[in-house]
């Protein structure tokens, strides 16, 4: 596993244009597989349009203490893109006006943004009741200054959504780096200790499972029950729900698919598992993604592909929800990742 981002390695795939080209060539150009647009048209779902906005997902920066092999953000310690206070202030203005009920903070490791806590506090004052922080867990034990994060989360009743690719050390470390599993377990125990994931505490702790390889997640409920049994028995850990998330063929996961000669099979699998019912609830329809530098996107994946919203308003500094809601969602072949099987979103399955 590489310990550097595609960007730091000057890999061709760090260029989103190259990724989009790759996703439109080959199988899809010669008609062997239908394009995502074609699939939507067949079901009369094209163009894809938003439903009422529920979640504002803000990416606080691409800096991360981990370099996971599947990361669609291409995040890592070598990424310096971080949201400034000025952009945060634009976000706060938008939060005051938005109809969205949930603020979903992601990264990178959002906690590494030096103004993370200030932003959560201000957003709380601005009226946000439902906070999600997507934590990679290991950040909590990475440095003394983060040790009190569980208390901070608790104070603001933050809903913590944490990645843990598997309940066994080997698979977790292979995907996320040596030692990640043990640190994640330690962080989960710290979260449990302040009440997270415990019945009756009202403090929600959900885990994210994503496959450590070129295969799709199957049966979120069965997987949740396996995770619960194993984590309880082995480490006395409690959590609320497990979200099974499909890896989308972009960025570092795309690099892996190509290098391991799994790309074609994976795309076949995604296309064959296309589920029209999942299309009705894909997250781009109720979520808006804001990048570290304030640009607006249909989802975090389109953000990484630099596909800004198809709207007259493209930046948080002149946020106008009516204008933004009246748009067509930008699609490409990576979208098959969200419509396969039971569907996939940042909240797990959707169908």
């Amino acid at each position: 596993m590489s310990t550097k981002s595609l960007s730091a390695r000057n890999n061709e795939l760090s260029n989103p244009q190259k990724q989009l080209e790759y996703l439109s060539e080959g199988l899809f150009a010669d008609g062997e597989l239908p394009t995502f647009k074609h699939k939507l048209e067949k079901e009369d779902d094209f163009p894809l349009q938003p439903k009422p906005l529920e979640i504002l997902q803000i990416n606080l920066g691409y800096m991360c203490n981990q370099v996971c092999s599947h990361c669609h953000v291409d995040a890592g310690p070598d990424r310096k893109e971080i949201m400034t206070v000025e952009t945060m202030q634009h976000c706060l203005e938008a939060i005051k006006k938005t109809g969205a009920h949930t603020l979903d903070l992601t990264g990178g490791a959002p906690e590494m943004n030096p103004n993370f806590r200030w932003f959560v506090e201000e957003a709380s004052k601005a009226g946000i009741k439902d906070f999600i922080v997507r934590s990679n867990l290991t950040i909590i034990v990475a440095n003394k200054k983060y040790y009190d994060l569980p208390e901070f989360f608790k104070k603001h009743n933050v809903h913590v959504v944490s990645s843990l690719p598997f309940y066994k050390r080997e698979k977790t470390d292979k995907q996320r780096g040596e030692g990640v599993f043990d640190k994640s377990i330690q962080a989960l125990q710290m979260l449990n200790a302040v009440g997270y994931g415990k019945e009756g505490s009202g403090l929600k702790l959900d885990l994210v499972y994503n496959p450590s390889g070129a295969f799709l997640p199957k049966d979120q409920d069965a997987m949740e029950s396996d995770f619960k049994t194993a984590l309880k028995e082995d480490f006395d850990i409690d959590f609320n729900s497990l979200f099974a998330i499909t890896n989308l063929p972009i960025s570092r996961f795309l690099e892996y698919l190509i290098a391991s000669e799994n790309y074609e099979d994976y795309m076949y699998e995604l296309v064959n598992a296309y589920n029209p019912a999942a299309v009705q609830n894909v997250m781009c329809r109720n979520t808006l993604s804001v990048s570290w530098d304030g640009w607006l996107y249909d989802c975090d994946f389109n953000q990484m592909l630099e596909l800004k919203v198809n709207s007259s308003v493209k930046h948080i500094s002149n946020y106008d929800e009516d204008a933004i809601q009246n748009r067509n969602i930008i699609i490409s072949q990576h979208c098959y990742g969200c419509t396969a099987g039971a569907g996939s979103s940042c909240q797990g399955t959707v169908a």
Partner: protein
Amino acid sequence: MSKPYYDPSDLRKFGEITEWSEELGKKFFDYYGSVFEEGALSAREKSLIALAVAHVVKCPYCIDAYTKDGLERGITKEEMMEAVHAGAAIESGATLVHGVQMMNKYKKLSM
């Protein structure tokens, strides 16, 4: 170089067998789908049985399919290998139990 008899990408075309015999093909795939649903045995248990049988009948397509199915279900590599051994043990047992026939014949023919 000659083409191999088995092409991994042929597995994707499995469904096409229905085109040349629609009724039988459809019946087979309906049956196949039902077999692997949750029942008295869990889908997970059936996946491991399928993996073991795949090895015994030495079907490369089935081995590919049920290794992936196992990964999708979170089945560990240790569980998968034990399933392969269970299949192998039955298969070698089936050979060895014929040793009794050999012993019987030997004894019958010997003074």
